[in-house]
């Protein structure tokens, strides 16, 4: 699994960035390896705070793009050209029925509001009015939601409301391998009409919670200083043959040949499948 959230962004907004006083960089690689470990600040600037938008992406036409969930049910990159047109006209509704990847209910006294995890909007409701869309909700700590992302959303929302201008906005959750919980989110924003004069940032917000340790593979958590819970089987995708009642690795040749009617994609542990009466394939030996 690639750990890069963006590999080769083509041309940067050279002209605009020069005008706005931002320095220009051709370096546009962001990997978790390049992100410093969390050290007390809820975010860290990336690429000198210059977003990776390309010239082709420049527009003052409002739009929203929420991408698709991946095979692990994880959100991907979401983007928008935020304007008054995209802002909400109705009150927020319930989002409790959405279960983002890695979702767990965990409560700690050291967390504001007790609950460790929030259903965290990638593009904040105040910017696009998108409420319960699964492609826009990740499992995020209270700290990520309130201390990390919200201040940036506020800055963008105020600017749009006060000027009627537009802001190119992109949020990319960054997962390590097949983890179900993101290590953090990359937030990029650039005000279009004034060429980044008012809004220009590129930051990585950490999906951490001070005082709490998190297993990003599963979403399990425990208080710092306590022992981690017994390691559970990591969630893996298997392909189940409903006819033969055998299960396979996703890459097994037998799985690839399975007819749609007999095929079931299962996310969970090997032990759970065996407990349900399925047998492991003798060839791929899942």
């Amino acid at each position, binding site marked *: 699994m690639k750990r890069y959230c963006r590999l080769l962004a083509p041309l940067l907004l050279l002209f605009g960035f020069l005008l706005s006083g931002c320095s220009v960089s051709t370096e546009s690689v962001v990997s978790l390896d390049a992100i410093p470990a969390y050290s007390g600040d809820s975010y860290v600037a990336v690429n000198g705070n210059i977003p990776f938008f390309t010239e082709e992406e420049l527009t003052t036409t409002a739009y929203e793009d929420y991408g698709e969930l991946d095979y692990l049910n994880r959100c991907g990159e979401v983007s928008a050209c935020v304007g008054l047109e995209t802002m909400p006209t109705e009150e927020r509704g319930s989002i409790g029925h959405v279960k983002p990847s890695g979702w767990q209910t965990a409560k700690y006294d050291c967390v504001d509001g007790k609950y460790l995890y929030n259903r965290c909007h990638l593009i904040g409701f105040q910017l696009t009015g998108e409420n319960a869309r699964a492609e826009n909700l990740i499992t995020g700590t209270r700290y990520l939601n*309130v201390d990390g992302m919200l*201040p940036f959303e506020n800055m963008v929302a105020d600017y749009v409301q006060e*000027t009627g201008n537009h802001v190119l906005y992109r949020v990319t959750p960054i997962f390590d391998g097949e983890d179900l919980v993101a290590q953090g989110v990359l937030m990029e924003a650039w005000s279009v009409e004034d060429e980044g004069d008012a809004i*220009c940032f590129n930051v990585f917000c950490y999906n951490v919670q001070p005082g709490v340790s998190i297993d990003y593979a599963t979403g399990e958590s425990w208080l710092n200083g306590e022992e981690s819970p017994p390691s559970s089987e990591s969630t893996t995708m298997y392909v189940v043959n409903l006819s033969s009642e055998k299960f396979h690795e996703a890459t097994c040749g037998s799985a690839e040949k399975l007819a749609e009617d007999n095929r079931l994609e299962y996310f969970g542990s090997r032990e759970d499948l065996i407990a349900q009466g399925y047998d492991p394939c003798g060839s791929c030996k899942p």
Partner: protein
Amino acid sequence: MIVIACVDNKMGMLFNHCRQSQDRVLRSHILEVTKETRLWMNGYSAKQFKEGLPSHVTVAEDFLSQAAPGEFCFAENTELLPWERQTEGIILYRWNRDYPADTVFPLDLSQFTLQSTQEFPGSSHKTITEEVYTR
């Protein structure tokens, strides 16, 4: 000089050289509060007054060095610490919201006395708090 500044919940003022927020009601309020004397600001601040600037406003990049006693200085992205001794008072506007910040209000408020506080709604801020400090 009397410094006018806007801050968020953590005394932040700027992030990546950009003001954290703005509000057209607050702009009108500042012009009203300062109308009896001169109000100084730099070109960066003047650009946000899309509604136009009245005659009591003077725009200059080195406005802090030019301001006379009793005159107002709207400071957003200028160094304030070198002018701490000349600062007779402060009018602080609190957005009452959280924004990212890499520049915070640098003057020590404990060296001043809070004379008055009032709240009013902004155009995009539910409540803006005005605090007036004197030496």
